[in-house]
């Protein structure tokens, strides 16, 4: 084969034709990544081929397997960056809205205050890292890495639309919820490892929180899956598009899930494990510098995932009702906007409500949310038996 022009190298083949294509259906971020690699790799291959005509390296750079590999690397960066920017925007939203509820303006540095988040990131990046002598170094580092890592992983695994996803399994929802529920265990171990009384209490409280909200939340997820008949996130969203968003028949479940999701993300009415000045940041007391900065970011990741779960399970995901095929244009943006709308409600709740006590959260979880979620389940079952869904 003779290559003369650059267009022989950069020709954007159909992504589904690649035998190593790792998805079942069309995937937009992979498509973007493969086209980017076509441009980068194709240009490099063309340049090398100009110098050394007919060399094997140029051929290798544009063969199916190499394209797939580098496309996956760019794919992970694209997915990560989109989620990261989404989380930064929710952080900015929280600062602005919380500021307004307190009758002040919130952050003001650059781009309506958005650059404050970036500046804070750089500041924590350059902070000195202090580590007390008495900590158990192994668990101290591992647990915090895993809290941040799993939070980021589930934030990346949330599909933004039926073409923007990382995995599309029939167990997708279970996978995400399983990873989502892991953090309290790491927090418990981390609180012990720091050898600090505040951290110990914080870790214990994280475990206590989990045993109070986890059951109602799982029952509510089972209810939503009962209605949709699948654990596949795309399937749940499609089922809502075919009938109606689930917050209408499951209004009790929607409110309960909202509060439980608030607790799962450890946001203010339920931030017992952290409890700002009450416990000196609770389980985060001994983490300094960049570690603390990333823990803060992980909090917002969990907030983002909670809001995304509410959007998927109750608000119809990436579809809007009554607009038909217009949904095919920017479902990703619709999904993110809905997520930020739910996050807005969470901020209002944070601004309005005081922190609950430890015994109150247990009583709330077992004596209020549990019966409510069971009632919701029974209502859905009656609707299902009556043939409404």
């Amino acid at each position, binding site marked *: 084969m003779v290559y003369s022009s650059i267009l022989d190298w950069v020709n954007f083949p159909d992504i589904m034709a690649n035998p190593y294509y790792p*998805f079942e259906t069309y995937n937009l971020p992979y498509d973007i990544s493969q086209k980017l690699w076509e441009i980068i790799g194709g240009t490099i291959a063309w340049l090398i081929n100009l110098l050394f005509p007919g060399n094997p390296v140029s051929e290798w750079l544009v063969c199916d397997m190499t394209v797939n590999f580098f496309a996956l690397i760019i794919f992970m960066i694209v997915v990560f960056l989109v989620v990261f920017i989404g989380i930064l925007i929710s952080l900015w939203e929280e600062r602005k809205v919380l500021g307004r509820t307190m009758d002040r303006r919130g952050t003001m540095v650059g781009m309506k205050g958005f650059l404050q988040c970036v500046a804070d990131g750089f500041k924590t990046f350059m902070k000195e890292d*202090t580590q007390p002598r008495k900590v158990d170094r192994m668990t101290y580092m591992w647990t915090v890495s895993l809290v941040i890592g799993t939070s980021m*992983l589930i934030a990346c695994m949330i599909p933004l639309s039926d073409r923007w996803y990382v*995995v599309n399994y029939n167990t997708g929802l279970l996978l995400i919820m399983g990873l989502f529920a892991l953090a309290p265990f790491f927090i418990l171990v981390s609180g012990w490892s720091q050898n600090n009384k505040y951290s110990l209490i914080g870790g*214990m409280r994280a475990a206590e929180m989990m045993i109070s909200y986890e059951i109602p939340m799982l029952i509510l997820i089972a209810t939503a*899956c009962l209605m949709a008949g699948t654990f596949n996130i795309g399937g749940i969203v499609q089922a809502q598009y075919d009938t109606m968003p689930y917050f209408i028949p499951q209004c009790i479940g929607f409110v309960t899930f909202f509060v439980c999701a608030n607790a799962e993300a450890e946001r203010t009415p339920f931030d017992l494990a952290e409890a700002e000045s009450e416990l000196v940041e609770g389980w985060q007391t001994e983490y300094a510098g960049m570690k603390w900065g990333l823990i803060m970011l992980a909090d917002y990741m969990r907030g983002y995932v909670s809001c995304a779960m509410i959007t998927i399970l109750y608000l119809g995901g990436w579809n809007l009702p009554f607009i038909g095929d217009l949904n095919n244009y920017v479902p990703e943006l619709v999904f993110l906007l809905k997520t930020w709308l739910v996050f807005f409600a969470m901020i209002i709740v944070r601004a309005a409500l005081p922190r609950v006590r*430890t*015994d109150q959260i247990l009583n709330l979880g077992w004596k209020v949310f549990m019966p409510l979620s069971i009632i919701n389940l029974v209502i859905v079952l009656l609707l299902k038996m009556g043939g409404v869904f």
Partner: protein
Amino acid sequence: MSLIASYLPLVFVGIISLGFAPAAWLVSRFIRPYKPTKWMEETYECGSVPIGDARVQFRLQYYAYALIFVVFDLVVTFLLIWSVAYGGLSPMATVWMFLFLGILILGVAYSLKKEETIWI
């Protein structure tokens, strides 16, 4: 497309999401100052010298709730499986599921009533 190949994107995303925090700490090591003092290596206790060790025997005040939680977590696992398979099950399966759930809810209600006097 094999099953292993379908997990490849998850592996790649897992690498970046689990790896970015350690990578950030590693990179910031070259930028941040490092001047440890005696006070910085001390465990933080609001300015006073910490008394004793924090690895003490700790009273789990919510022990009863934790026990109920362990039981109910299993129930919810059954509930999840039942909910997703509902379409293919006979009406009798629903009756059994709710009998099972009802017995456990009665148990929880009884234990909560009994534990009410315990201070949390």
